[in-house]
């Protein structure tokens, strides 16, 4: 994978200088939020409920021996517990913690990684994007006073593949994938078309990751916002001509660093979305995840309007250290644990 993979397995995969950089960046982040009176919090890694997102798999364990006792899920992000704090009146909060996602291992993924997640009371996603810029400036990664180019998801697709992602039908997305020579494997057992296995959102994800991301890799930073409503996750939906999810992503050289939402505060809509994800999981034969009733009760109690963002800290270190793989900035990546 890297030159480091030849070093003995007991050794860290990275230079001590990278660990010093990590430590400096963590300290600078804590100073940044302390100055803004954003409170640092810690929430549990293990919970009885989990994340039902059909594209994320949780690690789980049991409170008893073997399969005895309650099943507990390791969090894939501290989002649910932090929202319970917000509903309880915490005000703006941040957390730096390890999160866990099964099967995610590659040059930009490690099943255990460090997340910086923060929530700002009274902010919308545009104001939070501005704060992301200020954080990058405080870390010396963005010139003082400079703004990052912002582009809507729709405009991004129009510029790079000439298609409007909100209105285009799947046949044009399929044609785009063929024209741009993305060699997608099609199960010979399926029909000639990939319609059966690829939803519209799957096709958009394929075009984004295989065609657009390589093309935006020349841009040091880019903020993409206003995603299709079908990809809202836990973001508010705004009803423009086309409904859009008030979500944003920060890219650095074509690599996704952060994902932010103008947070959904409606408990009923939230539960509805969870149930949809759960149904998709069942259709795909995936494990059912107990839904977080505490989060639901917290939202029903009332959570003030806020915006939140989750930033992959290891990838941020990759940018700061100019490294090409996430394993190069972690002391002990998954093949050394």
């Amino acid at each position, binding site marked *: 994978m890297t030159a480091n993979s030849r070093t003995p397995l007991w050794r860290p995969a990275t230079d001590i200088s990278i660990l010093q950089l990590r430590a400096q960046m963590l300290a600078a982040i804590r100073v940044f939020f302390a100055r803004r009176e954003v409170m640092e919090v810690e929430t549990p890694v293990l919970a009885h409920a989990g994340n039902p*997102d059909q*594209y994320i798999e949780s690690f789980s364990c049991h409170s008893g021996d073997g399969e005895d006792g309650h099943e507990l899920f390791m969090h894939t992000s501290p989002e649910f517990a932090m929202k319970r704090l917000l509903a309880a009146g915490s005000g703006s909060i941040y957390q730096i913690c390890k999160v866990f996602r099964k*099967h*995610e*291992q*590659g*040059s*930009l*993924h490690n099943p255990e990684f460090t997340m910086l997640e923060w929530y700002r009371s009274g902010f919308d996603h545009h104001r939070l994007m501005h704060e992301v810029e200020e954080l990058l400036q405080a870390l010396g990664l963005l010139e003082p006073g400079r703004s990052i180019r912002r582009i809507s998801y729709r405009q991004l697709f129009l510029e790079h593949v000439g298609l409007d992602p909100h209105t285009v039908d799947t046949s044009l997305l399929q044609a785009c994938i063929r024209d741009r020579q*993305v*060699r*997608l*494997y099609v*199960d010979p057992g399926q029909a000639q078309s990939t319609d059966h*296995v*690829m939803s519209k*959102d*799957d096709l*958009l*994800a*394929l075009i*984004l*990751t*295989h065609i657009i*991301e390589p093309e935006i890799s020349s841009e040091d930073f880019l903020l993409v916002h206003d*995603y299709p409503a079908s*990809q809202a*996750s836990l973001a508010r939906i705004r009803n423009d001509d086309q409904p859009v999810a008030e*979500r944003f*992503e920060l890219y650095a050289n074509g690599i*996704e660093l952060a*994902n932010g939402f103008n947070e959904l505060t409606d408990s009923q809509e939230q539960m509805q979305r969870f149930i949809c994800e759960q149904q998709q999981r069942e259709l795909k034969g995936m494990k059912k995840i107990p839904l977080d009733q505490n989060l639901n009760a917290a939202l029903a109690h009332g959570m003030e309007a806020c915006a939140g963002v989750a930033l992959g800290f290891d990838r941020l270190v990759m940018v700061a250290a100019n490294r090409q793989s996430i394993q190069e900035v972690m002391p002990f990546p998954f093949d050394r644990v």
Partner: protein
Amino acid sequence: MLDNDPFVIVENDIVKPGKGQAFNRVKVRNLKTGRVIDRTFKSGESVEAADVIDTEMQYLYNDGEFWHFMDPNSYEQMAAGEAAVADAAKWLKEQDICAVTLWNGVPLSVTAPNFVELEVTETDPGLKGDTSGGGGKPATLSTGAVVRVPLFIQIGEVIKVDTRTAEYVARVKD
């Protein structure tokens, strides 16, 4: 198995948008042609596994069309065609142990031993007093392979050759 051919994975990386479907971008090498191609899979998708195993077999003889090998444990014999033997043909000496890759029990590819000892059947007479340093001349070996050898090597001598680079290694003394 892809497009009815057996492949081996060379590289595999996960690509995933911030939210949504993950994909595995995979580089695979066709075991029949050696060609490397890119394929993208939806993460979690499964593909039929190719029934491919690596075995060590003893080379017996060539009947003009097929190269015959024997499993030294079971004494089972198998014939490999030209496509499977390919470049290894010029290094195959009877009795030598080769790596044979089987697909569905049929030889898919043959790899010659890294080092083989072969007799020189043809080469120009060397100049008297020459040492092993510098120069060199072509020599044809008993299998038909041609390698560069030092000038002092004579017809009838046995030399050791690295089959991976087709280079002379040493003279083998009786």
